[in-house]
């Protein structure tokens, strides 16, 4: 250790400082020697041998471990091998057993197969015998088969010829069918043409009619189907009914010698005209609706003034019952009447006496004026229809209308068609100009009741109404000629039918005096 002694007062600061520093350095060195310097080597020495020893032992341990591991590995390898071989030996043993078993099985199978073989040889012999039999049978069958084939060929040929014939027939049939079809088409065409014709005619009719006189009254007639009113009008039969011209009012005359006027809308009685002696057989109204002329069985005619209800004239001159009367459609004064004294008389109502008398050998049952008032048509008991000129009183023409007596005669509104009814139960339609029959109407149950059964034509000239003895009224269509309606209400024979000029209603009367109106 060093010691510094500086006692000098002049010692500079630096020196003092340097001394202090040196001292400090020394102290540091001393501290170093005391602490780390002294202990470090010992500590290092202590720790080192341990470490080195440890390392030697560690090495040994590692070596031994490696060895051990190798041994383990070898052992594991051997044990693996052992396992494999044991498994192999087991497998081979199993295989051996299996094979022994299969050998036994195969031996058994072999013996079985031998047995089967013996059986099969027996069966084979049987079968071969059977085969021989079958072969012989087969030959027989073959011969049969050949026969059959021959027969079949013959049949086939026959069949062919038959088929040919059949085909021929068929073709003929087809031809026939074609012809029929052609015919049918023709007929269809004709029908169509006729339909067109008819339509045209109807239209033309309508047009013509509308331009005629009295067209304002024209109304289409309705086919009556049901009873409107049933009026007990007269006692002991009603033989004559007539509608006023273009009016719904009906005038009826009966066996009870009275004239009655009815409102057909209500069915009520308007007037009753008395004064006639004898049952009323026929009546007519002048075209101006002012006078009613009645033909009675008392051989005289009575003329009523409708407005006053008084008899204006009693026309006498006939010697037997007057059965028919009609008034001119153009003149107020001219009327004709027919009686069972074989005369037809023409009367002038202005003068009140007969202006002409026509005599003929057969009694007249019904008559009517033509449209122009110059000609009268009369139906006679001998079944003939005759036309007369009233000026000259000469017979203009004559035609046989019915085989029995004519009971009714009426002119259509246009004056071209004439309807006659006869006791032969027919209704004939005549063309006035040529006097040819243009239609015949009949019904299975129709029987004309009396010599004076009146039928009528509808105002539009399309229908005809006629009564029958069994009480039914038939409506025919003129164009089609068939029955369009049958009216059954009367219990006695229907004597007279009259159609209103308005188109409806139709009125009919019977032997019991009952008047029915139909719509």
């Amino acid at each position, binding site marked *: *250790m060093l*010691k*510094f*002694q*500086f006692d000098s007062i002049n*010692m500079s*600061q*630096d020196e*003092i*400082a*340097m*001394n*202090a*520093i*040196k*001292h*400090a*350095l*020394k*102290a*540091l*060195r*001393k*501290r*170093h020697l*005391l*602490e*780390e310097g*002294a*202990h*470090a080597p010992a*500590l290092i020495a*202590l720790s080192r041998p341990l470490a080195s020893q440890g390392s030697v032992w560690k090495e040994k341990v590692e070596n031994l471990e490696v060895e051990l591991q190798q041994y383990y590995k070898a052992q594991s390898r051997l044990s693996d091998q052992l396992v494999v071989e044991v498994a192999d030996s087991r497998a081979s043993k199993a295989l051996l057993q299996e094979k022994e078993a299969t050998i036994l099985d195969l031996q058994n199978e072999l013996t079985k197969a031998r047995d089967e073989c013996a059986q099969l040889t027996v069966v084979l012999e049987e079968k071969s015998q059977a085969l021989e039999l079958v072969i012989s049978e087969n030959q027989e069958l073959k011969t049969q088969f050949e026969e059959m084939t021959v027969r079949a060929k013959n049949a086939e040929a026959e069949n062919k010829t038959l088929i040919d014939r059949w085909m021929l027939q068929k073709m003929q049939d087809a031809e026939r069918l074609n012809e029929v079809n052609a015919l049918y088409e023709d007929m269809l065409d004709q029908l169509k043409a006729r339909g067109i014709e008819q339509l045209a005619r109807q239209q033309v009719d309508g047009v013509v009619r509308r331009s005629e006189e009295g067209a304002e009254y024209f109304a289409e007639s309705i086919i009556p189907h049901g009873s409107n009113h049933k009026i007990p009008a007269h006692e002991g039969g009603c033989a004559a009914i007539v509608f006023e011209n273009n009016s719904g009012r009906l005038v009826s005359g009966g066996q009870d010698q009275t004239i009655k006027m009815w409102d057909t809308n209500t069915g009520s009685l308007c007037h009753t005209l008395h004064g006639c002696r004898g049952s009323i057989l026929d009546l007519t109204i002048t075209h101006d609706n002012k006078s009613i002329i009645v033909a009675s069985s008392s051989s005289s005619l009575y003329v009523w003034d409708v407005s006053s209800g008084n008899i204006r004239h009693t026309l006498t001159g006939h010697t037997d019952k007057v059965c028919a009367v009609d008034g001119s459609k153009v003149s107020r004064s001219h009327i004709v009447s027919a009686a069972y004294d074989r005369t037809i008389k023409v009367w002038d109502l202005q003068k009140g006496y007969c202006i002409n008398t026509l005599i003929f050998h057969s009694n007249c049952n019904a008559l009517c004026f033509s449209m122009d008032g110059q000609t009268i048509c009369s139906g006679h008991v001998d079944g003939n229809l005759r036309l007369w000129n009233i000026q000259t009183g000469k017979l203009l023409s004559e035609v046989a209308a019915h085989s029995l007596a004519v009971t009714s005669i009426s002119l259509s509104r246009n004056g071209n068609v004439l309807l006659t009814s006869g006791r032969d139960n027919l209704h004939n339609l005549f063309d006035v100009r040529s006097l040819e029959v243009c239609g015949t109407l009949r019904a299975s149950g129709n029987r004309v009741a009396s010599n004076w059964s009146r039928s009528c034509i509808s105002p539009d000239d399309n229908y005809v109404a006629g009564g029958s003895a069994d009480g039914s009224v038939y409506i025919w269509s003129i164009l089609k000629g068939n029955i369009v309606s049958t009216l059954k209400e009367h219990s006695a024979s229907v004597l007279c039918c009259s159609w209103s000029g308005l188109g409806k209603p139709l009125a009919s009367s019977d032997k019991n005096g009952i008047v029915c109106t139909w719509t």
Partner: protein
Amino acid sequence: MMDRGTKAQKYVWEGAIPLQIHLHESEVTTLPPPSPALILAPRIGYLPLLVPQIKPFFSSSLPPGVDTVWFEYKGLPLKWYLPTGVLFDILCAKPERPWNLTVHFRGYPGSILTPCESEDNVKWSFINSLKEAAYIINGNCKNIMNMSQSDQVELWNSVVNGNLEAFIRVSSKLKLGIGGDEFSDKLSSLKSPQSATETDNTGLVKTGRIPVRLYVCSIHENFDDLEDAPHIDSWDKISYINRPVDVLGEGKCFTLLDAVKTLLPEFFAEKSSTNEDISGAEVGDESRSPSEHGSNTGTAEEVGETLCRQEGSDSLSDKAEIKLLRIQGIKPKLEIPFAWVVNNLINPEHFLHICVYVRVLEPITI
């Protein structure tokens, strides 16, 4: 500054305390109990860094469970964030070699110590101290904050491994130089006669603030030998002063004594006056002479001892008396230039740790 550090720095960095570490009885589970571990603890290091070395010695005899390691000296749990050398200096007034410590792996005294779970806690404690120091020196801690990750790791590794060269290399980037210290140069110049007339210094250091941690242990009873120094059984007996020292560029050399005066003015306020009174009469009084350029020379130990005796004899008239001042395990003279001390004896976190035993007189006794 030399790249390899001064000789004193080398001593500081190489400094290590031999430790004899015992496992606490309560944690011994084997028979016989494990033998104590002998180990060298670097002075600038921290106790938790020793754990990996210690653990193998005791691992076989520890009870099962999670280990939380802490150390104890004579019943006093040791603060892990203080450098080991500082702990040794403050707690062993008379150096005890090897130092007997007890290690605990269980029952961490959380009420006394801050928790330390891993080396990282120590590292961050170190970095924080470094930041603090940087702030004191430069007024900011940008350099530390901007330190790259690799530099940070290298710095820490240099501390852990005691690698002075690496430390100087990294810390030079931090620009925490406290200023030249011509005394080191002068010392080397003295040793090398060639450059003897190199400098005529003024004994100045550059002005600056020096981060200092001062540990003051106040003692009431007097003692002559350090061995008689009372045992410290509680951290309350050690006052911890964290105060920067302003190095003033005065005309004279700023000594360690000046620094201590600024740090502990309460002890010197009256003392200085009395010192000056006495100075004339008594020359060589270590504690007062530096201000008057008076010095007794001798080895640190001897000086310390004489100083103690002298102080003891003189202290009756004083309120307080510095019994012991220790830096890095040595007792420097108080007239030593503070600049040299700072440059050579600082710890790696740039703090200067000073341990002081002060005898304080009861006012009643006066």
